[in-house]
């Protein structure tokens, strides 16, 4: 990434308005910082607010309304509160927590570069790009498991083992569903995966063939299992194991842990949108107009906004399902992943392969 003069870096140079004389690692660092500070963190704050308001609306409540207009500054208030509570240094460090911290940080920052955020904002666009975010999800699950096991209490052990079991179970159907899209698009490059879809919903992978619709549903559900998000959060259940792995975290560590949970949720939603829901594709005429005008930055911004809009809708959809439905038991979750999601994902893979092999297409309905 830092040695070869990669073609995908060119768009970033243009985007930052820097000359190509600057060393490439500077670009990479700038790109990561940019993604982190201007995409991930604001998205986290926005989602935390939207989640609260949306859940409140569903549950006939008001939600945050004290911090700022309509409670808009609630995320900032939360952050400040978590920051002022406790400290990372003053309490005795446990070795297991240090391991967790390092693993968690790895998961949080290593996949920033892989995150597809627009046609011009692809830092790593290799043949295997689409598989890289799994690294983050799996490492985060590993970190969460270690956190639970290191807690040295029965609820922590249960939480850790449950997280490990359901992540393993959920990864298989998720990977198969991903392969379905790859078969459809002919590549696992972000650019190819997104390029196979257009602005109109009919050109999205989701609707381009019925097996991909199945794959989409499988991908979302197995994603919820891998992320251990509600209602598949047996490892973090508040009732029987009072929060499981995270029950002893507080203050900044809790904030860090929560941010990790948000990050994997966000990452998963972004890649779902890119894989199935048309990614960042804008209307073709607009794109060509902007390209002719050489307005790369405007184009990147519009693409990013469009992608984020879809991502947030998808995340709100998942929150909707999570708030309304009861939590599943962890043996039911693994059962569901192995016995329902996996067969359906394999069925989708076979179907998609045949569909693509025989060259069937819906054709545009108009």
């Amino acid at each position, binding site marked *: 990434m830092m040695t070869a003069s990669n073609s995908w870096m060119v768009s970033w140079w243009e985007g930052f308005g820097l000359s190509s004389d600057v060393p490439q690692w500077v670009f990479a660092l700038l790109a990561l910082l940019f993604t982190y500070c201007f995409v991930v963190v604001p998205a986290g704050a926005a989602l935390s607010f939207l989640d609260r308001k949306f*859940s409140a609306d*569903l*549950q*006939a*409540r008001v939600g945050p309304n004290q911090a700022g207009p309509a409670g808009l500054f609630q995320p900032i208030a939360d952050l400040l509160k978590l920051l002022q509570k406790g400290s990372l240094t003053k309490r005795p460090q446990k070795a297991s927590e240090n391991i967790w911290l390092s693993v968690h940080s790895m998961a949080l920052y290593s996949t920033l570069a892989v995150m597809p955020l627009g046609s011009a904002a692809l830092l790593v666009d290799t043949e295997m790009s689409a598989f890289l975010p799994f690294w983050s999800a799996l490492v985060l699950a590993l970190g969460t498991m270690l956190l639970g096991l290191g807690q040295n209490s*029965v609820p922590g052990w*249960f939480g850790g083992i449950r997280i490990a079991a359901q992540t393993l179970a959920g990864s298989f159907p998720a990977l198969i569903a991903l392969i379905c899209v790859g078969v459809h698009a002919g590549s696992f490059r972000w650019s190819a995966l997104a390029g196979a879809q257009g602005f109109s919903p009919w050109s999205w992978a989701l609707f381009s063939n019925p097996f991909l619709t199945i794959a989409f549903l499988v991908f979302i559900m197995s994603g919820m299992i891998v992320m251990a998000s*509600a*209602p598949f*959060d*047996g490892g973090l*259940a*508040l*009732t*029987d*194991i*009072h929060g499981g792995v995270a029950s002893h975290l507080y203050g900044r560590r809790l904030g860090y842990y929560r941010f990790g949970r948000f990050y994997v949720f966000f990452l998963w939603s972004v890649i779902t949108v890119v894989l199935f829901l048309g990614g960042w594709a804008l209307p073709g005429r607009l794109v060509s107009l902007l390209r002719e005008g050489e307005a790369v930055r405007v184009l990147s911004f519009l693409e990013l906004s469009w992608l984020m809009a879809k991502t947030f809708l998808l995340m709100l959809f998942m929150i909707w399902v999570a*708030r*309304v*439905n*009861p*939590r*599943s*038991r*962890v*043996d*039911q979750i693994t059962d569901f992943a192995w016995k329902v999601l996996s067969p359906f994902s394999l069925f989708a893979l076979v179907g998609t392969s045949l569909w693509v092999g025989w060259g069937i297409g819906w054709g545009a309905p108009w």
Partner: protein
Amino acid sequence: MIGSGLNSQTFFKTDLTTWEIGPYHSSLPGPMRLKLKLDGEIVVKCEVETGFLHRGLEKASELHGWPSLVVYADHLDPEVAVFGELVTCLAVEEISGITAPPRAQVIRLLLAELARISGHLAFMVRMAKAVGSETVTHYVLRDREKILDLFELVTGARFSLNFLRFGGVRSDVTDGFIERVLEVCELIRVRMKEYNDIFTFNYSFLQRSSGVAPISKDCVRFCGMSGPNARAAGVAFDVRKDAPYLGYSNLDFIAPLGRGEGGVLGDVHDRFLIRLREINESMEILKQVVERIPDGPFLHAPVGNDYKVPAGEAYVRIESSRGLLGCHVVSDGKLKPGRVQYRVPSLANLMAVPLITPGVRVEDLPVVLASLDLGIAEADR
């Protein structure tokens, strides 16, 4: 085959884990302690320890005059305070040989059935909380609030009513109370459909509740269980039916029995459904009662500092929202009660926990505890 003589149980034999939950834990219905032996996530042995909420209620009742007895009975089970008051008043009335005027009886019956609905709605909330269904929790609590508002309208308090008196009720119902009862009944009827759509028939909830921790008829007899838990197991016993009080014999209602819709008779799902059906039955009772509420006095005689009960004793039982609630009052003709004793349903239901939990997964433990509708305040008293 290597493992031909071994099954996985012996092959992967692991040590049992010991885990003590409590006295304060979000999965418990109140302060109590569970001593668990776990094989993996499966409960092998479960012991219950109670008494953390012991307030010496029965002893305290003896230390104060007769009028204070109702106030203490309020705190027997603060969540459904009417039943404690009702059973105490009935027992004292039996000793003194007085009966409440008909109007007072109807007002008592109205309050008791409203309390039953409120208690069962609270049960739904705890159940939804145990399975982690947030939205239902908020919806149901919102509607329970309507019933608490009714209590506040007629008695002046939401939980500790202190409204029943020996020989009647403290004051007459306020204007518009009857209409508001009907309004609330209608509202809850509409809302129950919504709850069913969102929760009762939800597949995840069915999966969580069906076949989990069934109670057998033997277990019911062994523990002396009563109320909805026993009826869910198929034991047709309801004090309102078998030993009617307050004029329940004149009313047309049924005491629903478990039907084994979750696959096994008396499982968590049956226990949940039977309470939903009881809410419907209670609303039927309310509708019948408000039409024939008689005129007349509401109190036999005011109860003051010098109130005395003739020497004697009485045992009275009623059907509270949790089961058979009995009260034994002994009077020696003085200004204070000689002995007050309660037979509470929750203690019997609590005794079933060690019998039905082995084989249950740890994740289902909160669900099982919630489904028994335990009132720890009542059990420890």
